[in-house]
């Protein structure tokens, strides 16, 4: 069962006065076994939390990199059961690193929300992000997840004003994912200075740690985000590393973990290095 891994991890990091490095990979990209090797290597590479993408045929909030990752995963036969299986196998070797699933609503609806929540919790999943399920539509999903002890991670964006922030905060759990740019994943680069006040506002309104994603690609960007937020999420850059390795017939595991390690190092030293 989940047992508060997200809370514990952010509390530990707060004591160390550093932000979390959150690594996103798509489940089943490029195939299930390689993906498991990547997952198993991520904590040692410095990932503090893992976001595991649940592939969907129609990812309307994702840019080309994650679209293609979803296609690779689906072509390889990845399913919701397959995603839960990856989480469960990862969890047998790592009791502490939180896993958050990130995807779209329809595969979960099709699976059955209660069944999904129960099985995800049993697999060692800690939270779920559903991109196309805003708070107004989230009651059934939140009920199911909370019933199983999982958090529905809420999203806030540059278009979320103060009035909406109150709605976003209402049943928020785990942490809040602040989408740094109005755009799709892997699109425009983040401007850490510009988002600092927004991050503070979200943290204040929700009373939860705030991780910032979309547009965080390079170690420099990750470090800049780590200075103003509680976590920096990197997705497209890691997914691109997988694609690059596959296209060049190189080992995706090594390339992704090297990329992750460089990002993790930047995040870890961001605050010590002065802002």
């Amino acid at each position, binding site marked *: 069962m989940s047992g508060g891994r997200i809370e514990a991890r952010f509390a530990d990091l707060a004591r160390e006065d550093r932000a979390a490095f959150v690594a996103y990979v798509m489940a089943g990209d490029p195939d299930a076994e390689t993906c498991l090797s990547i997952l198993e290597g991520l904590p040692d590479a410095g990932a503090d939390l893992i976001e595991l993408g649940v592939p969907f045929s129609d990812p309307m909030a994702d840019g080309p990199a994650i679209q293609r990752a979803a296609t690779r995963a689906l072509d390889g036969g990845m399913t919701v059961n397959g995603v839960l299986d990856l989480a469960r196998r990862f969890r047998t070797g790592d009791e502490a690193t939180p896993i958050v699933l990130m995807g779209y609503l*329809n595969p979960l*609806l099709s699976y059955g929300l209660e069944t999904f929540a129960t099985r995800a919790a049993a697999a060692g999943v800690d939270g779920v992000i559903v991109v196309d399920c*805003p708070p107004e539509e989230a009651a059934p999903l939140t009920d199911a997840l909370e019933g199983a002890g999982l958090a529905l991670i809420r*999203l806030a964006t*540059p278009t979320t004003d103060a009035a909406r922030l109150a709605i976003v905060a209402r049943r928020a759990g785990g942490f809040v994912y602040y989408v740094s740019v109005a755009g799709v994943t892997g699109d425009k680069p983040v401007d850490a200075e510009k988002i600092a006040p927004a991050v503070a506002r979200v943290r204040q309104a929700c009373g939860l740690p705030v991780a910032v994603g979309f547009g965080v690609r390079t170690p420099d960007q990750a470090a800049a985000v780590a200075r103003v937020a509680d976590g920096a999420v990197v997705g497209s850059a890691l997914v691109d590393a997988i694609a690059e390795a596959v296209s060049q017939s190189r080992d995706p595991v090594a390339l992704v973990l090297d990329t992750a390690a460089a990002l993790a190092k930047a995040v870890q030293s961001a605050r010590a290095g002065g802002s």
Partner: protein
Amino acid sequence: MVNAPPPNDYLAYPDAQGRFGDYGGRYVPETLMPLVLALGAAYAEAKADAAFQVELGGYLTNYAGRPSPLYFARRLTEHLGGAKIYLKREELNHTGSHKINNCLGQILLARRMGKKRIIAETGAGQHGVACATVCALFGLECIVYMGAVDVERQAPNVLRMNLLGAQVRPVTSGAATLKDAMNEALRDWVSNVEDTYYLIGSTAGPHPYPVMVRDFQAVIGAETREQLLAAEGRAPDALVACVGGGSNAIGLFHAFLNDEAVRMFGVEAAGDGMATRRHAAAVNGGRPGVLHGAKSYLLQDADGQILEAHSISAGLDYPGIGPEHAWLHDVGRVRYLTATDDEALEAFALCARLEGIVPALESAHALARLPQIAAEVGAGGVVVLNLSGRGDKDLATVAARLGLGALEGRV
């Protein structure tokens, strides 16, 4: 199939959250949520503003050419030997389909909201052409997302859009048809939240689009009611329309929904046949799910992945259906039938031969079910069919499918 109790007043739907029973809603990323809510508020204001309605009415009359005629199809009626067949001639509207009704309404709304950049998705290109037309009319930037496959098979409409000053962006992801064009338009909207208005072409998408597009298309049924009263002194016995996203169908049905005596038939595209899985019949071959901002019937696999739709008609080649139709199906108010590619092609030729009207392949799906409906209603009854568009855009598709000259001498 779900069975919900029928409501007392069909016109009272959707509720404030955009729900038709369990269907509809606003399943969009948080970035879009404030925009969708603002659009709902702006539309509610415009709808209640007499000046907006007068302005829209002026353009519908003087620019689009409304009202469209309600024409008694004598030879088709004789051929079928059942109920009297009337055709609601939406294909005579400016730009050649019902799509202009919705585009005029939404472009006036976009202007009211101060938006300068218009984006749209299109399948057959009829909505894209109508959208490009109203953008030209008001001097607004227009970007149309169109599946690369549809760019090929609807080439004349791509030329028309370009001529009208729109930029057509081919979409190569997925099956490169309407669903993928809509994904890409949504991605554009998420990335351009300040200045962009997304002009959706059917009764699909998040609330308020399904209700707004329905309202703008409801003029079809409102006119039909008056025109038939003048011609026959009564209401129709049955209405029939093809269903892609469902805008021409709900446009015809809406004014009659509370009139229980009026039977209604929506015709979905069965492609190669319902047994083949190569079809586009969301109600007849799908189950409820969430796509493109709304809950409705969808073609999907056991794991909730959306399946590609298949239809000879680009405008029906979509794996979903508007949420109001999903609800009207569940409560049993409208019957959803299907027609295959081959049946639509037959009806396409028949209509041309008997009435001198070349229908759009989309509309031909509705025509294909006419024999059954005319027989069911019987002699002495009246059936109105929505001839949603004209078929010039489809000539290349039909010729490629049947071979040049194959139509000669048929019927």
